[in-house]
């Protein structure tokens, strides 16, 4: 069944904009077993935010009603009104992204509905100017969601970035586009980054080739990998463990959350090195041992 974002309305309220909760949002979702509309998020999700426009010019009531009762509902988790008010429609995964490909390569093709928070926003999509409160609310909302659920700005995409050639949203006269043009998403993401400090995914340093004289240098220790460690620390461990084939390269292993899966993977990795004191905690020796596997003896123990 997966999980629901039970604090979604509270996160939306942190923007300072009015929030309207639509009955049943806590348990509303796409598909699910038997098509019962309870399909929630599995472990590691949501890990993206996808921004849309509605391509409609009607009342907020009509738009939200369509999203909640139209075919393949719920269409989107949230609906952003032209006045900046945020309508909470579904706390579980929704239908609105569909077929496409992830620009940042984390989510597999045609699989974004189950992995993202989708925001629809009222705009006709053919040049209607976006009111300032709506734009401001959009930025603050995405920033708040990212901070609450550990989704970095790089994992915020427009519908047209996910489905180029098939979609154009969001588009329209705004801080991010002129006339009916599609939004400049780099600019939007920059504004989102400015609103709330979110640690970006760590950039994996290129493999260090030992110089001719030897002397391989271990990449800097990112911090202890353990329950409760920061997003960037966990991502650095995940990236290094993927690079060394310890864990698979899939979306769940890029989530920046040190849970039981990472603890067990780290424990098994340490056991595979013959460590009798394996504890599943990524300390300095584990880091040095892991990073040196393919290039040099471990600088800590020489093995």
């Amino acid at each position, binding site marked *: 069944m997966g999980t629901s974002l039970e604090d979604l309305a509270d996160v939306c309220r942190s923007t300072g904009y009015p929030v309207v909760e639509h009955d049943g949002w806590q348990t509303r979702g796409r*598909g699910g077993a038997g098509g019962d509309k309870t399909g929630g998020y599995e472990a590691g999700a949501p890990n993206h935010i996808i921004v849309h426009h*509605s391509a409609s010019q*009607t009342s907020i009531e*009509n738009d939200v009603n369509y*999203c909640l009762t139209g075919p*393949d509902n719920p269409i989107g988790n949230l609906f952003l009104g032209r006045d900046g008010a945020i309508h909470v429609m579904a706390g579980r995964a929704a239908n*609105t992204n569909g077929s496409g490909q992830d620009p940042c390569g984390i989510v597999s093709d045609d699989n974004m509905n189950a992995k993202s928070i989708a925001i*629809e926003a009222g705009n006709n999509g053919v040049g209607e100017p976006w009111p300032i409160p709506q734009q401001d609310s959009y930025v603050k909302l995405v920033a708040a969601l990212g901070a609450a659920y550990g989704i970095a700005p790089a994992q915020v995409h427009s519908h047209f970035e996910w489905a180029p050639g098939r979609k154009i949203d969001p588009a329209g006269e705004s801080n991010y586009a002129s006339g009916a043009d599609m939004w400049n998403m780099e600019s939007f993401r920059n504004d989102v980054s400015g609103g709330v400090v979110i640690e970006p995914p760590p950039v994996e340093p290129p493999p260090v080739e030992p110089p001719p004289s030897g002397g391989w240098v271990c990449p800097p220790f990112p911090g202890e990998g353990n329950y409760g460690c920061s997003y960037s620390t966990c991502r650095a461990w995940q990236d290094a463990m993927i690079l060394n084939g310890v864990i698979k390269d899939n979306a769940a292993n890029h989530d920046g959350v040190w849970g039981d899966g990472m603890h067990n993977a780290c424990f098994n990795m340490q056991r595979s090195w013959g460590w009798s004191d394996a504890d599943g905690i990524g300390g300095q020796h584990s880091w040095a041992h892991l990073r040196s596997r393919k290039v040099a003896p471990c600088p800590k123990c020489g093995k």
Partner: protein
Amino acid sequence: MTDTQFNDFDPEDAYDVEDDPETRLEVLERVVADLRSRRLDGRFEGRRIDALRVIRNFLNERTNLEDRLYELKTELEAM
């Protein structure tokens, strides 16, 4: 576009590759039905091309599954 209709949603927006095959086929049936009625409008070419990609991937997945089933069947028969 009418003044009252929500137009961002197309049938293919309900597609997720991890859904069960019957659900995915049902979505694709609706995609093709929708495009059949719009085929004369060139604006929908992007949707048609994307739907073709999705269906090709679905077919490859089925072919790979079938190939593996034949391998397993052959192995069992030879035991």
